[in-house]
């Protein structure tokens, strides 16, 4: 079976919102936004709100991490997939489960207690850093960028 056509995977703790729906999706030219998130996969209201945000003609799917791992191999070559996940730990689980993710865009990781701000819109704790390290070791390319028109920020900031 052909490998699923995953254009990009983004870490964003707001999942599908203005930046994702209006900027990233248009720039990538994806026709399917796959939200891989356990909580949202069972929350109809959050799913419906995100469907409203998605541009016309772009399909949305809301799968748990396990379901994403199980089903991704069945994607059609016509499906140009943009995966959105909440945390680096979730992305690591997808990668370890066999989802062929080559590149991860790090968008919004909000500040919280126990986290430190390392880039304009990225705050991390030790667990996040460990997950990013492991992703890199697995050959996944990391990029810190809020929206397509803003410059890429230095990924080494994650590990400093």
């Amino acid at each position: 079976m052909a490998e699923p056509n995953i254009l990009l995977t983004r870490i964003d703790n707001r999942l599908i919102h203005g930046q994702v729906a209006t900027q990233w999706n248009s720039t990538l030219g994806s026709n399917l936004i796959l939200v891989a998130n356990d909580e949202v996969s069972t929350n109809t209201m959050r799913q419906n709100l995100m469907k409203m945000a998605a541009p016309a003609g772009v399909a949305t799917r809301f799968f748990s991490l396990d379901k994403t791992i199980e089903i991704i191999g069945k994607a059609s070559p016509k499906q140009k997939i943009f995966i959105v996940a909440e945390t680096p730990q979730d992305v690591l689980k997808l990668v370890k489960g066999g989802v062929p993710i080559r590149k991860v865009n790090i968008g919004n990781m909000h500040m919280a207690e126990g986290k430190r701000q390392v880039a304009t819109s990225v705050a991390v704790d030790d667990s996040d850093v460990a997950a990013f390290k492991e992703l890199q070791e697995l050959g996944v390319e990391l990029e810190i960028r809020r929206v397509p028109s803003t410059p890429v920020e230095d990924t080494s900031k994650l590990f400093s």
Partner: protein
Amino acid sequence: MIGFILTGHGQFSNGLKSALDMVAGDQPAFQIVPFEGSEAATYGDDLRAAITAMRAECEEGVIVFVDLLGGTPFNQSMMIANDVDKLEIVTGTNLPMVIELLFARNGATDVTALAEQAVTAGKDAVTRQSLASVMGAADEATDEDGI
């Protein structure tokens, strides 16, 4: 590229610009001209200078996005349009309108058609939503092919 000028009462243009920066990032050929307080006296001249400079840069034309039909930013823009060709004025500017137009202007050469698209986008974005519209059961994926 078709140039964009954003202007309005008080901090309308500053505020909308700050929202655009957050959603879409910094944009080329995009300038704001606030109409407020201490700058009110020179507003007409400032707006004319901004439009003229943008028009010199942008061969295909310029769209001026104003907040309110009939307000001073609108009136001043219309008077400037008397002297500047390929200048379109759009009123009732809102965030979704400008977000869509920032994409639509890529490769666009017809400033009038682009201004008409702004009106459609801005009107379509005004909706009423109720809780009922987000509480219903989610549709299952129906694609026969794929996931």
